[in-house]
């Protein structure tokens, strides 16, 4: 498969030296093939979402349409109204927004401080603690879900939105600290020393020099924390039992369990849940990609 993908490239490059005298047609054909393949791929990525949105905008029926509708045949907002008012998705939406915003703020504030400490201070067991942090990155959350549940119980944090914030923040800190530390370390020492000469203390340096310089990294951390908290399902499923405290993923999943045929409603709620994700992603696209490739590409 990969061999096919590279053929266009080879012809294109073979044409390079003679491109001036020759017509551009062979080059354009290969570009067309390349675009066509990518468009096919992108359609595969987007088609399920089109079916989702289309289903959410059509009246609920017991049988699914055959062939599937990529565009709605009859438009109605009934599913959205019903989801929003009768099934308390407004409440779930609010819970998710509350939890995600608090998690974002908390993890950015806490990890910028720990990252600063790791980047610019020396203290006993520093390397050991950083390794522990990295280990936290590698251990998948679910492996420790039982003891975390026991911990949450003893901290009285079951069935509370603030409890969710606490554990989501804890889960994000390893990655955001890792990210911010790398960034803080790149702040030139000379600037730091110049401020020391001017009589600036640690706190002032942190607030006036490091934080403003680290804005892109802070944005990256914020995007990751927000999406992480907004999309999280398993932990919320484990600790939240009060139906009014459900976050959106819980609300959507629980609803599907009760009425497995009302797909229009499920997808209306799903669409509402996906809109903020896409908004945050598109707004923070550059930062998100910088974050993913940190560590992956040296």
């Amino acid at each position: 498969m990969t061999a096919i993908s590279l053929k266009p490239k080879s012809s294109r490059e073979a044409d390079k030296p003679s491109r001036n005298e020759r017509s551009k047609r062979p080059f354009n054909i290969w570009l067309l093939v390349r675009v066509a393949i990518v468009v096919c791929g992108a359609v595969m990525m987007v088609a399920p979402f089109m079916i989702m949105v289309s289903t959410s905008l059509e009246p609920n029926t017991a049988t699914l349409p055959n062939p599937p509708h990529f565009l709605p045949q009859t438009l109605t907002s009934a599913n959205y109204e019903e989801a929003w008012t009768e099934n308390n998705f407004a409440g779930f939406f609010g819970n998710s927004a509350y939890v995600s915003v608090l998690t974002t703020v908390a993890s950015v504030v806490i990890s910028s401080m720990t990252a600063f400490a790791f980047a610019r201070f020396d203290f006993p067991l520093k390397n050991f603690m950083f390794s522990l942090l990295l280990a936290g990155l590698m251990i998948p959350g679910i492996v420790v879900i039982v003891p975390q549940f026991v911990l949450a119980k003893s901290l009285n944090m079951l069935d509370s939105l603030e409890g969710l914030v606490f554990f989501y923040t804890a889960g994000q800190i390893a990655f955001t600290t890792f990210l911010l530390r790398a960034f803080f370390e790149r702040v030139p020492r000379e600037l730091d020393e110049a401020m020391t000469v001017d009589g600036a203390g640690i706190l002032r340096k942190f607030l006036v020099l490091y934080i403003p310089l680290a804005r892109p990294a802070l944005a990256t951390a914020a995007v990751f924390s927000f999406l992480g908290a907004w999309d999280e399902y398993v932990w919320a499923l484990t600790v939240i039992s009060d139906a009014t405290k459900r976050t959106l993923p819980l609300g959507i999943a629980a609803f599907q369990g009760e009425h497995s045929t009302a797909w229009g409603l499920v997808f209306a709620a799903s669409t509402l849940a996906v809109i903020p994700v896409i908004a945050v992603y598109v707004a923070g696209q550059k930062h998100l990609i910088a974050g993913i490739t940190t560590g992956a590409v040296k």
Partner: protein
Amino acid sequence: MLTTGYPLVRSLQISFYKWSVLPTQASTFIGLDNYVRALADPQFWTSVVNAGVYLLMSVPATVALGLFFAVLLQKKMPGRTLFRVLFYIPVVTSWVVVSLLFKFLFTTDNGAVNWFITDFLSLSDHAVPWLEQRWTGLIAISLLGIWKNLGWCLVVFLASLGGVGEELYEAAALDGANAWHKFVHVTLPGIRGTLLFVLVLQVIGAFNVFPSVLLMTNGGPAGSTEVPLTYMYKQAFSFLDFGYGSAMSFILAIFIFVVSFAQFKFFGEKKEALR
């Protein structure tokens, strides 16, 4: 520290007990019994085999397709940024939303996938009961895994491909290398580190497959599509057997540690770059 270090130790401790959920009852120390039980539990092994099947079906395809589209998107083309955004949307969408969406697509009666197979391609004249059988269920779950993770691989590979020196390709072209040779001798060695990184993370991710199974088949029919985490989760939170659940998650953690360790072995010099 509190939330990563402590639970790990506690997890190990709990796994040696017949853990009691009620504070009024005492938990009894039973040593390695939970581990012995897990290793002798056919349902546990079914779940491990299923995770292995999921891994073999989804990881190679995800990585290969991610690299394929990254190579295609690396050079300038109209709408490149838009394509990158479109490929990445499944990655940022909640597992709950995409799992339910795929459950819908794989519905037996009039599901979009069955329509595609029976009516559009005419491959078969009867609908496939995708989520009601073991192997087709695992295929559906794997397809979701490929679809959701492809964009992540693509983005990481794109960043990495940008780092492969153009002069290496030019040198190879002078030597008369064709596209395939260039790919094998220039591109692949150039992104070797990233390739391993992506592969290892995808393998770990495959063993952590959870919400998609829970929501698409719920491990059924009769536990035949259960994976380690869904089984562990049910033992711990449905049957409240925390000790047994912990033991199983520890067996899984040991496996993941071995894989991670292999990763660091492979990376060697990369480790410095990470700091």
